[in-house]
């Protein structure tokens, strides 16, 4: 039973993540007055792409073919490391969030290498932007989690999210709010959503993530689409676990509630994307710096609070 419980978060992440993207797309379509693609469109897309043949450019090497697989392996591994609300991960250990951030970094590194491997000027440009923005987003992620570590006195993500202080808005409202918003901005940036990047754009000059995968086709592209949707689910999962105020004892009820929260957050992202325009590339660092400010402020508050207790 315990093992089954611990398998719930990865199973949810790996099966439901394309639905999250579907919900975001649907929300945007409804707000724009369109009907939009089916909610399960990404599942169909991935299934279709997996059946297709694959074309490799003659200038590419084995790195280009390895990159999507590293991405897939990365998200699967992270899904086993991240808790979902009060549901513990498979094997919580102290400092596991550093491993999580490291694997995200590894995935990004290989995506960038794969993009550079094609020798395309546009992909190189996208790779450089991806590297810059993620370098700015990572400190914010670490600072945000550091505030949570300090707040709860735990050093493993599973224990942090299961601690009584966590999600207790009466005890630590401002800190949770600050960290929640900061992590939300980080996950928007990491997943290349509006306002950092527009995932639906097809103008190479402004794209970040999409431009890096232009040369992939067939099963590789399917794997990339699937991994990026799972990455979105996992990062938003951290946000949801941070801000959720109530938890259930029953693991299935808890999993259901958390997944529901995540899908609701997907609607929220759809609203953000419908109402905001993509920022100019030059303004993105200021936004990420802002998320760093939120995290630093949260740490400041937590430091003083623990001193007073």
């Amino acid at each position, binding site marked *: 039973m315990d093992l089954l419980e611990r398998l719930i978060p990865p199973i949810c992440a790996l099966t439901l993540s394309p639905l999250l993207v579907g919900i975001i797309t649907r929300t945007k379509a409804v707000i724009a007055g369109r009907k939009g693609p089916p909610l399960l469109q990404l599942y169909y897309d991935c299934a279709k792409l997996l059946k297709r043949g694959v074309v490799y450019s003659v200038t590419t090497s084995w790195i280009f073919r390895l990159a999507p697989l590293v991405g897939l392996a990365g998200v699967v591994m992270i899904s086993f490391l991240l808790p979902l609300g009060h549901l513990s991960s498979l094997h919580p250990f102290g400092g596991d969030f550093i491993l999580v951030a490291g694997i995200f970094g590894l995935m990004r590194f290989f995506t960038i290498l794969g993009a550079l491997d094609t020798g395309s000027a546009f992909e190189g440009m996208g790779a450089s932007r991806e590297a810059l923005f993620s370098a700015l987003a990572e400190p914010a992620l670490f600072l945000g989690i550091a505030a949570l570590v300090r707040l709860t006195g735990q050093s493993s993500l599973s224990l942090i999210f299961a601690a009584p202080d966590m999600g207790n808005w009466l005890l630590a409202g401002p800190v949770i709010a600050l960290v929640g918003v900061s992590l939300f901005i980080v996950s928007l940036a990491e997943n290349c959503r509006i306002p950092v990047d527009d995932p639906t754009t097809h103008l190479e000059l402004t794209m970040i993530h999409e431009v890096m995968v232009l040369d992939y086709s067939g099963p590789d592209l399917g794997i990339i689409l699937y991994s990026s949707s799972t990455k979105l689910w996992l990062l938003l999962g951290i946000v949801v676990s941070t801000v959720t105020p109530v938890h259930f004892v029953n693991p299935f009820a808890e999993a259901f509630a958390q997944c529901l929260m995540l899908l609701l957050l997907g609607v929220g992202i759809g609203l953000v994307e419908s109402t905001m325009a993509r920022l100019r590339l030059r*303004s993105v660092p*200021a936004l990420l*710096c*802002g998320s760093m*400010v939120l995290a630093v*402020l949260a740490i400041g*508050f937590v*430091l*003083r609070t623990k*001193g007073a207790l």
Partner: protein
Amino acid sequence: MTGPFDLVLAIVVLTNFMTLGSSRLQVAVRNTAVQGCTLGALPLLLVGITGAPLHLVIISVLSTALRGVAFPMLLTRALRDTSINREDNPFCGPLLSMGIGLAILICSFWIAGRLAVEGHAGHAIAVSLASVFTGLFIIVSRRTAISQVLGYITLENAIYILGLSLFSEIPLLVELGVLLDIFVAVFVMGLLTNQLSQTFDNIETDRLNSIKG
């Protein structure tokens, strides 16, 4: 933890950073207005809304009226009369300004952590220190008169936070005197902005150097 109190402090810090990160003057004025309105509630939050003595209520109402409404209106008027609505070539760009602001914030929390003050007063000291230095930084890093007034208001707000949270028993008369002083200062600076824009068609204070005798 006193939730609402920390929330006010958080809003103060965030509005400071929004001012640092924006080059549009109207946005910066609006941030100051938000900050002023939020700070107006501070005296009441300190003692609880129901049990507030009369002089704190008066301070609260007057602060909101001046910091949250009157100053922004004055500055908006001054902005409307000039044709400049952006901080075009500040000495520090938005990103560098925010980075420096971040460094200031970290240093302030570090300094406040070394003082032997417990609880929410500790947060208030950190935030007001950060605001003081942010205000000073805005004054030295921007060129237009409006931005410098905003820096001055930020600086003054910081002193107000510090005073209120450390000595909640500030005499009404002192606080009123301070408010009158700031009002006159902002008023005069608004006039200065007007004069600048009429004389030079520009509101950058550097231009004042050219009329040196």
